[in-house]
């Protein structure tokens, strides 16, 4: 088959699930979730590398596929097909879930195939927020809390990455991965960019110190959620790290820190798994292995950050072996998929959720208490101020009293007299400044 066919398939693979995500379309089609993956499957099995530029889209984005991406895409297709096959019966349960599901798919495929930073960022945001929506589908209290946790992390991560994107825009006009990385590693102030990228993707991938949303989501959700978690947020974010990170020689401290984080992640998860093995006898009952899978996942991301730390320490070596990372990600995620599939079949939700929630609840109550105290203080202050003003008894005092007594949620700025006076002042100010 000719190359045009593949280049067309390349962008259809992204647009097609987006089209299908419209409720009116997918309700009228049989098996929409299978249909949506077909172009991606075609891309995986074809041996040809292809690329296409779409200059009018966003900031002139493009799509491309090569051997490295194909590894990830392969793992991806496998996981998505699995999730489709285990969710099909509940397809009609909620009118929204198909849409969100397909939007998540669109976002992940877009991020996977795109060739520039803006495209990647846009796709991951789409993916992130649709995944948040999926988490909220038919969610009970714990699931909702987990979803909210995810949302906080997501927003913070997006902000960090947005900052990074701004820095790139500030430095160069081009957003292609290679060009941008080159440009960012050449300028002197790239360390901010480096930290922003690291922070953003570590939050998004749940790499070690930021793993709490990961375990929460994993444990409170279903198998499908767990599988999607591996496929979308985690794999894509690891890929993002590979693509965004600038490599320079003089950042070895960051490299060391990353290695340290990776090592602690592995240590922590190994400890966690072992304590479970030792203290919880019912290992193979109630799908206990399923819960340990979350920790395997954390160990895996920890391993990744260990590798990444090495890369930061020795860029030359990294360039030589980077092609190995893609199959590593692909194979690991498929392994984890199989593990979840086998062990999660008859798992039950644990009675008490992860200790993280206890911690957060405590924090929340503390905040609440603090808030109450400050409010009391503020109201006392208000009283004092009020009595002071009352005594002075001037016009200004009454204006301020109105603001303080603001019961109807009406701002003093709605007063007609004040506003027309402001209007007058503004007109005079404009004239004066023009002179």
């Amino acid at each position, binding site marked *: 088959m000719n190359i045009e066919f593949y280049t067309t398939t390349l962008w259809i693979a992204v647009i097609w699930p987006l089209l299908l995500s419209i409720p009116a379309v997918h309700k009228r089609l049989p098996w929409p979730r299978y249909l949506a993956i077909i172009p991606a499957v075609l891309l995986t099995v074809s041996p040809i590398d292809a690329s296409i530029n779409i200059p009018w889209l966003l900031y002139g984005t493009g799509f491309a596929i090569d051997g490295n991406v194909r590894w990830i895409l392969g793992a991806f297709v496998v996981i998505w097909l699995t999730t489709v096959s285990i969710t099909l019966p509940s397809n009609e349960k909620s009118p929204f879930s198909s849409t969100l599901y397909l939007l998540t798919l669109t976002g992940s495929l877009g991020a996977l195939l795109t060739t520039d930073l803006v495209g990647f960022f846009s796709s991951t945001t789409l993916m992130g927020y649709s995944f948040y929506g999926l988490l909220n589908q038919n969610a009970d209290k714990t699931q909702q809390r987990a979803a909210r946790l995810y949302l906080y992390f997501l927003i913070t991560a997006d902000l960090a990455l947005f900052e990074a994107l701004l820095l790139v825009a500030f430095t160069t006009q081009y957003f292609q991965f290679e060009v941008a990385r080159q440009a960012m590693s050449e300028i002197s102030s790239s360390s901010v960019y480096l930290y922003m990228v690291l922070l953003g993707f570590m939050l998004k991938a749940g790499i070690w110190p930021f793993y709490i949303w990961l375990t929460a989501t994993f444990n409170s959700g279903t198998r499908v959620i767990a599988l999607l978690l591996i496929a979308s947020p985690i794999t894509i974010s690891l890929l993002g790290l590979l693509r965004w990170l600038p490599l320079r020689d003089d950042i070895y401290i960051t490299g060391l820190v990353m290695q340290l984080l990776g090592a602690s992640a592995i240590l922590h998860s190994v400890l966690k798994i072992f304590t479970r093995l030792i203290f919880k006898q019912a290992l193979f009952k109630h799908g206990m292995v399923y819960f340990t899978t979350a920790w395997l996942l954390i160990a895996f991301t920890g391993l990744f950050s260990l590798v990444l730390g090495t890369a930061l320490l020795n860029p030359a070596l990294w360039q030589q072996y980077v092609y190995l990372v893609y199959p590593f990600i692909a194979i690991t995620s498929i392994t984890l998929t199989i593990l979840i599939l086998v062990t999660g079949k008859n798992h039950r939700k644990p009675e008490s959720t992860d200790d993280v929630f206890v911690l957060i609840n405590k924090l929340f109550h503390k905040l609440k208490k603090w808030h109450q105290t400050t409010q009391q203080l503020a109201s006392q202050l208000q009283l004092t101020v009020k009595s002071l003003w009352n005594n002075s008894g001037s016009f200004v005092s009454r204006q301020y009293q109105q603001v303080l007594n603001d019961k109807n949620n*009406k701002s003093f700025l*709605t*007063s*007609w*007299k004040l506003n*027309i*006076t402001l209007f*007058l002042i503004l007109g005079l100010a404009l004239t004066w400044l023009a002179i």
Partner: protein
Amino acid sequence: MNPANFYALVGIGLFCIGLFGMIINSHLLRKILAFNIMGSGVFLILVALGRRADNMPADPVPHAMVITGIVVAVSATALALTLMIKVTTITGQATLPDEDDK
């Protein structure tokens, strides 16, 4: 000072008086009247300045503009008055909610 400038200054006076009235009066009818005074001021300036030189005929373009302006102002006043009556019948007072103090 030639008459044109005198009339124009009177127009400015009317504009400022109208603005003052619009700010300090809280009764809606007075506000609408103040708006009309402001409008008269503007129209007076527009027409008066059309003949600044004594030896020239008056400029017809401002006259036409004033007619247009007056019709627009009349329409706006009609709308404002009807709206005021409606507000008064429904809320029971002829002021805007933020100005019912005192």
